[in-house]
């Protein structure tokens, strides 16, 4: 036992591994004991081993970055984060419920629009949103599933409860990091796995395959599935290739596909055209079909929307899914759950003030120093303001932005994000983190055991996005072995 943890503060925030009086939480006992028994040199050695492994595995990352836009090595913290299986089971049920409701909503919005007629979600908010795509009206994908792959961002607040921060329904990424992180921990801290029963994560590619295959418009033969990538210069290309390969699917770019007069999409192969059944698109919907969306797109497949609408091709996520991925719509998700599923929401969501509503806007403008203000439809942590950390000038700037375009802004109370012990330089310090589980919805709904934990590596920072200096941790769902 050494003194490295003596000064560790586990009482200012909810800590993932330690209780407020500094004792390990149940799921973390083994981790904390093991780490405390290691000398500083041993801990450094493990970290060096992780860095080496990242470089080895990361060969693939470095080479794709010559274009210049991705971090070469992602910062990985060797100390895992542990959550009990019991707690996770509740979260997982809550996420499934949420995903079902969101899909009901998308399906409803593009068809009968019952929820708008009932006045539960204001019609103009939906129909005037840039995320609402009139091109998708009247389409009914199988099982009513639109957002087949959803990455929800969760944070744990001071009260120890998980809150959903947002639902990423367009082309969420990061699942390959989740898988790599587990690989790394197995290499670097193999001893830890002996005394633990940790739910495996490497099932993801087969679950993804099952989900995609269940969408196939034909059932006579094995479905032809492809991952559609914008190409090698996309920062997530590695993930696209990885997923295609681990599913045994084709990795295609727009130019590999064409739509014929029969409104079917074909893949160009050396044996001639091969009919596609399911496309997992990793291209933003605005770029997938120059006939239907942006005419200047070079990445897409002309006519792919025709094929999709004719029911000859499944696209995951379905175009138009982004309509529910909007921070204003977010405020209505609990109501959607009650409306469509006749259930009470299981997952907490964050109190959200909509600046378009006069009463809310007045409150927001009066409390800018306490709130987090976000644009309704940016992702990646861009264009937001964390009130308590912002300068008066910044707050003034946001006040003007809100007045000018209230529909485009929402505000939420500043959450007190949980921390976890993170190995920084030669000491263990608390860092804030979030969690992105992935929810798959086809014939069935499935949730990853855990997900990708992102860590704000800078002391005190709440920004976990990898594009802004975030790191990551392996996430363990631990079954109690007693």
């Amino acid at each position: 036992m050494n003194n490295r943890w003596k000064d560790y503060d586990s009482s200012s925030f909810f800590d993932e591994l330690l209780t407020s009086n500094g004792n390990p939480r149940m799921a973390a006992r083994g981790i904390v004991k093991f780490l405390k028994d290691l000398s500083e040199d041993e801990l450094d050695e493990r970290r060096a081993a992780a860095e080496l492994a990242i470089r080895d595995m990361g060969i693939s990352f470095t080479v794709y970055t010559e274009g210049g836009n991705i971090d070469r090595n992602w910062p990985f913290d060797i100390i895992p984060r542990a959550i009990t299986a019991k707690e996770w089971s509740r979260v997982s049920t809550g996420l499934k419920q949420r995903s079902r409701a969101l899909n009901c909503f998308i399906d409803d919005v593009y068809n009968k629009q019952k929820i708008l007629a009932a006045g539960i979600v204001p019609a103009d908010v939906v129909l005037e949103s840039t995320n609402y795509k009139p091109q998708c009206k009247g389409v009914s994908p199988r099982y009513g599933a639109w957002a087949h792959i959803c990455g929800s961002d969760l944070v744990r607040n001071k009260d120890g409860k998980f809150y959903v921060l947002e639902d990423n329904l367009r082309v969420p990424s990061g699942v390959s990091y989740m898988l790599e992180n587990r690989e790394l921990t197995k290499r670097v801290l193999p001893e830890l796995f002996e005394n633990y029963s940790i739910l495996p994560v490497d099932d993801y590619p087969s679950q993804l395959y099952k989900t995609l295959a269940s969408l196939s418009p034909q059932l006579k033969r094995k479905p032809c599935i492809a991952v559609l990538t914008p190409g090698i210069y996309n920062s997530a290309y590695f993930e696209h290739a990885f997923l295609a390969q681990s599913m045994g699917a084709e990795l295609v770019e727009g130019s590999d596909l064409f739509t014929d007069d029969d409104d079917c999409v074909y893949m160009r192969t050396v044996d001639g055209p091969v009919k596609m059944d399911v496309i997992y698109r990793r291209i933003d919907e605005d770029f997938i079909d120059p006939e239907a969306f942006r005419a200047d797109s070079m990445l897409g497949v002309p006519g792919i929307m025709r094929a999709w609408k004719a029911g000859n091709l499944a696209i995951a996520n379905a175009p138009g899914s982004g309509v529910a991925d909007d921070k204003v719509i977010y405020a209505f998700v609990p109501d959607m759950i009650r409306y469509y599923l006749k259930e009470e929401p299981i997952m907490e969501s964050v109190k959200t003030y909509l600046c378009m509503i006069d009463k809310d806007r007045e409150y927001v403008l009066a409390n800018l120093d306490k709130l987090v203000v976000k644009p309704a439809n940016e992702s990646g942590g861009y264009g937001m303001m964390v009130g308590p950390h912002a300068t008066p000038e910044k707050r003034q700037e946001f006040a003007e932005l809100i007045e000018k375009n209230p529909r485009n802004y929402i505000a939420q109370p500043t959450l007190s994000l949980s921390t976890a012990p993170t190995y920084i330089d030669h000491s263990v310090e608390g860092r804030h983190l979030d969690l992105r589980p992935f929810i798959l919805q086809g014939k069935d709904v499935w949730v990853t055991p855990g997900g990708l934990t992102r860590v704000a590596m800078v002391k005190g920072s709440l920004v976990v996005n990898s594009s802004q200096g975030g790191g990551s941790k392996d996430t363990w769902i631990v079954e109690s072995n007693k």
Partner: protein
Amino acid sequence: MTMLSSVAERLYWMARYLERAENTARLTSAYTHMILDLPRGAELGWQLLVDIFDADPVFRKHYRAFNEQNVLRFLIADMNNFSSINYAIKAARENVRTTRDVLPEETWEHVNELHIHCKDVAEKSIGRRHRYEFLEQIISRCQMINGLLMTTLCRDHPHRFIKLGHLLERADMTTRIIDVGAGAILGRENNNPAADTLLWSSMLQSMSAISAYRKKIGPIVEPDSAVNFIFKENTLPRTVTYCLNGILEELEPLKNNETAREIAESALRKLNRFDAQKMTFEQMHHFIDQFQLYIGDLDESITNTWFLPMPTTSSE
């Protein structure tokens, strides 16, 4: 299991570029070796190496004199020259980068390392002192990658297009070598049999064919029989006949192979009738010119049939 046209095309070009890098290294190595042996006044200059690649215009754009330093820089390190070792390795790597999923896992690592090595040392390996070692490295690393592919790849589409790329590039290079070898002798005014022997020996050397030649034909290398040997000996993997037979074999299982097969078959028939002993060097040069067209047609036919966007009924 079928295969994307774009992937087939990248594999084909990966193979062509790897083969090209190796061939350029082989030729450069054999040629510099020979130059050292040549008596003064034999008039075999460095320009010959540039001629082999039909690269005269590109060369002249960037250099003035056909001296050793310039020509070797052009062949080893110059990124303006699509046949330079440096360029070919980089191009091979670009193609592997996007086809990693159909290749044995180690392929990418090896090709990437080769690329890094080349980038680091090509510039320093132009001078005589390090040149030989560098060229040997390139040859053996290319062979290692080919060996890896040949011993681990499934015998289906990926293997097929890789093999087509290798064989076509090799056939192309071998004909170029003969053409220029013949041209060099033709171009000189006073006959110099000693230099001829040296030249043709080094050409055979560049194809690892000298000992096979000695065993099959005899110890003395004569231009005519050397040309016949390099063209027609069907047991030796670097001869034109061997390459064409291999191409036919790989074309066999592919759909829509009629045009490509027809071209390869008529090239073979033409080759069967060829006999260097009955020809003047002018006639030989003419023959090779025509033969090069077959190789170009073959490449075009492979490209049109299997790589290019499929003709569809809709207007794209």
